[in-house]
């Protein structure tokens, strides 16, 4: 029982971290109908920027307070993400208005290559460290009730908290404001949105910047967990089932989907995995999502897919 709880908590927290990445996908999809495969690359890029600036800032300025250095690095990294957003709008999306989803998706894969190459050129391809002072050692709960207690990673707990807070704030912002409505309009029909004067370019820069911000936060959290290196971009693959399970267009869906996937994959790996030889969590997550989709093809909270003649 104690172990079950541990696995459950572990799954919930892993799920929260997936949500954080899934959020980036959802934001961009909602606002432009683009399925942004570059989200992983953005996470890596943001984390690299953060890690390297945190290293360079003290060298450049001689500041030796860690907090100050991290803070400046954070701002610089965020500035980088805004520039990235601007560049993407200016040179890629702005030129692909009104194209089909799959073309846009491929364009984001192109962006992925570019960002990967660029990030590594500028920031290097070694392993870097993000140290924002997250505690690494575990804590134990319910030590009275269960033998050995129930273990929870402190780092995970904090990360999950931050992720949850961010998701909630963004969900509110995008659901409750007029901008949110305009964004959904853009995703539905680029041309019609243009025709009534919604400035696609400005909107896109904003949304991609916000997605860049989400990527940066995800990058910091994942980066301090994994170390900042190329493989960080691969965690995006783990967020994909979350996105479709929750629904491509739903911010709350990203949270719920994340939790479901996180719990589902951890429990399956721990309880079913050994029977099958282990290593099943990655495909299990997808199969889980697939199962839900068969019932609700638009994901749990996604907008209904419209087909009408």
């Amino acid at each position, binding site marked *: 029982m104690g172990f079950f709880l541990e696995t459950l908590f572990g799954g919930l927290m892993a799920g929260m971290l997936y949500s954080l990445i899934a959020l980036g996908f959802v934001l961009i999809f909602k606002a432009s109908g683009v399925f942004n495969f570059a989200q992983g690359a953005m996470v890596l890029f943001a984390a690299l920027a953060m890690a390297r600036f945190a290293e360079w800032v003290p060298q450049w300025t001689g500041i030796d307070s860690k907090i100050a250095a991290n803070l400046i690095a954070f701002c610089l990294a965020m500035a980088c993400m805004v520039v990235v957003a601007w560049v993407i709008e200016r040179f890629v999306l702005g030129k692909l208005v009104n194209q089909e989803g799959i073309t846009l998706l491929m364009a984001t894969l192109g962006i992925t290559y570019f960002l990967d190459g660029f990030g590594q050129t500028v920031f290097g391809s070694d392993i870097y460290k993000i140290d924002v002072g997250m505690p690494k050692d575990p804590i134990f709960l319910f030590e009275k009730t269960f033998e050995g207690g129930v273990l929870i990673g402190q780092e995970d707990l904090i990360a999950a908290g931050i992720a949850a807070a961010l998701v909630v704030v963004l969900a509110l912002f995008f659901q409750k404001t007029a901008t949110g409505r305009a964004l959904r309009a853009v995703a539905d029909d680029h041309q019609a949105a243009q025709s009534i004067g919604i400035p696609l370019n400005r909107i896109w820069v904003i949304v991609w910047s916000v997605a860049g911000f989400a990527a940066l936060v995800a990058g910091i959290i994942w980066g301090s967990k994994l170390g900042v290196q190329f493989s960080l971009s691969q965690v995006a693959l783990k967020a994909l089932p979350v996105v479709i399970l929750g629904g491509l267009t739903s911010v709350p869906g990203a949270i719920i989907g994340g939790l479901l996937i996180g719990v589902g994959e951890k429990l399956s790996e721990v309880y079913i995995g050994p029977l099958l030889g*282990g290593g099943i969590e990655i495909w299990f997550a997808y199969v889980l999502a697939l199962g839900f989709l068969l019932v609700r093809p638009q994901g749990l909270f996604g907008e209904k897919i419209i087909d009408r003649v």
Partner: protein
Amino acid sequence: QAKEQFFPVLVYRTGAYAPNGVPWANGYVDYLKLINAKGGVNGVKISYEECETGYATDRGVECYERLKGKGATVFQPLSTGITFALTEKAPADKIPLITAGYGRSESADGNVFKWNFPLLGTYWVAADVLLQHIAKKEGGWDKLKGKKIALVYHDSPFGKEPIPLVTERSKMHGFDLQLLPVTAPGVEQKATWLQVRQSRPDYVLLWGWGVMNSTALKEAQATGYPRDKMYGVWWAGAEPDVKDVADGAKGYNAVTMQHGAEPNAAVVKEILAQIHGKGQGTGPKEEVGSVLYMRGLLSAMLAVEGMRRAQENYGKGKVITGEQMRWGLENLALDQKKLDALGFAGVMRPVSTSCKDHMGSSWARVHTWDGAKWNFTSDWYQADESLLKPMVKAAADKYAAEKKLERRAAADCGA
């Protein structure tokens, strides 16, 4: 025009495994530079070209095809996947492959794998040495009975290599073996470590590569598994694996491919003086002498010594062919004196190969991370030949049967 021997250098300086690939590549290239700085091999200078594989098999094959055409006489694929693919191609092209510390374990059998050279050790050697070390700590093989050992491995041919040997040993000595695969690249291991926490194995063997290693250590820390009970393969025992975990990895052990971090080796000093000193170093100066750097260095040295040996037989100062290179690698006789002369004193033990034995040495030792650097913490072990030999032979025979290959005739070993 000066005579030049061409060395292809397959590397990965980008992608998921770059942090590990880069120091290896720098060590490899620095050593070739050093040889040239010292006038080449009997006057034959070495030319080389890097080719980026990104650890991907198809790009590796492309590199092979491209560089083969430039007169390559030995390849070091530095990836188990590429090794597998090239094993099929090398015999036709008559180019030997050196896979120092990786590749297929059964390729130690030179009679079947005529062009493969897993010099200095295979994964079976690594696994056997680790188990010997653990047994010794416990106070003998018999003490392992009823103990539990978990193998956390990279879910790929590389990670699966040690399984036959470990399984064999567990049968022999009656310890429980728990197999825990980690899906590549290994960024998400929470479930694995929860399982470790649940079953509380006495030891964990870590067969990881790249990001999987540091993640494993971090998860071990987060689930409270003692790092000093963890033993890594030599690809999980270098600086990039522990660097960003730092204190969290204190006490973690790994088997070495003979060498560890060797800042004091003569050859390292030589490189610092002659190459870095002249501003021609390939990578940053601080990295010289680190574990993976040394592995690259060692790999290059083995190739160069193969060439030197071949020249001894086929004519000093000549550019040799692939077949001659194979002869050289098959007749390596690096005794202590030669090693000392090359600046490898204390870094490794003598190596001697034959056409039957393409591995040349099966010694290894263990080193431990103290939070800042790697220190040796054990004596030398030799893998148990009586166990390994039959396993190698059986596996090689199976391969030969599948491929309808003939074992090499004794006569073929002569010249």
